[in-house]
């Protein structure tokens, strides 16, 4: 039904960037979690999720992002998002995620803000 979900991971001066492609459902959440674990184990503490190509999400997928957020908050790390479509921003607001993770319009804006942290 949905196109295959993929997540590409890159690093920019200690900030781990997760670029997602496709519907963020339970399976996508698990795929993100797996990549996050690898990055965390390599010492990553700042994580940016670029959702430009993920215009549909569901709360099960986002719940897995909350699992990730729990660990990041506990380790004094940073989680941020960029390129979110309005319904994704609204969903994050309703769920309260924006109290703990910032949302930026663009990747460059996010990276600049995260470097200052």
């Amino acid at each position, binding site marked *: *039904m949905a196109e295959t979900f993929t997540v590409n991971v890159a690093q920019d001066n200690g900030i781990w960037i997760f670029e997602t492609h496709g519907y963020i459902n339970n399976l996508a959440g698990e795929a993100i979690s797996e990549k996050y674990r690898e990055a965390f184990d390599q010492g990553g503490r700042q994580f940016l999720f670029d959702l430009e190509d993920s215009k549909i999400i*569901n*709360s*099960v997928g986002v*719940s897995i992002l*909350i699992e990730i957020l729990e660990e990041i908050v506990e380790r004094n790390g940073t989680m941020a998002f960029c390129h979110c479509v309005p*319904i994704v921003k609204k969903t994050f607001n*309703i769920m309260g995620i924006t*109290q*703990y993770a910032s949302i930026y319009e663009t990747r460059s804006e996010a990276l600049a803000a995260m470097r200052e942290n």
Partner: protein
Amino acid sequence: MDGERNREVELTIPMLQDMELAASRVAEALAEVLKFDEEKRAEVSMALLEACINSFEHSKSEDRKVYITFQTAPDELKITLRDHGVGFQRESIDPPKIEEKLRPGVRKRGWGLKLMESLMDSVAIDSDEYGTTIVMVKKK
């Protein structure tokens, strides 16, 4: 298709991975016919995704199907979603809070109803041991 006339569309989806997307696409198409703005179309679509997923995950229905009726009026879209599952008690479900969800060992899920109620103008739930009916309305 004339958006000013009342119309009814029925859709039955199996409880299979990602089938909620089929329902949300119908909702979005009907919302477009009604000339809902992009934000409201996305809200309807998201609320219906969540309603379907709740049914998939919690209904324990034997036929593993969700029955959806979309009814359009000039200024609103009404979506009725039914399953033949075991039902649930709305009052037994506490609203989720992020500060609690972020505590170690706390289950992170359970956001569906909150999202549906936040994104739609009204959500009514009728549930018993023979199944659940959810009626959601979004006004233009």
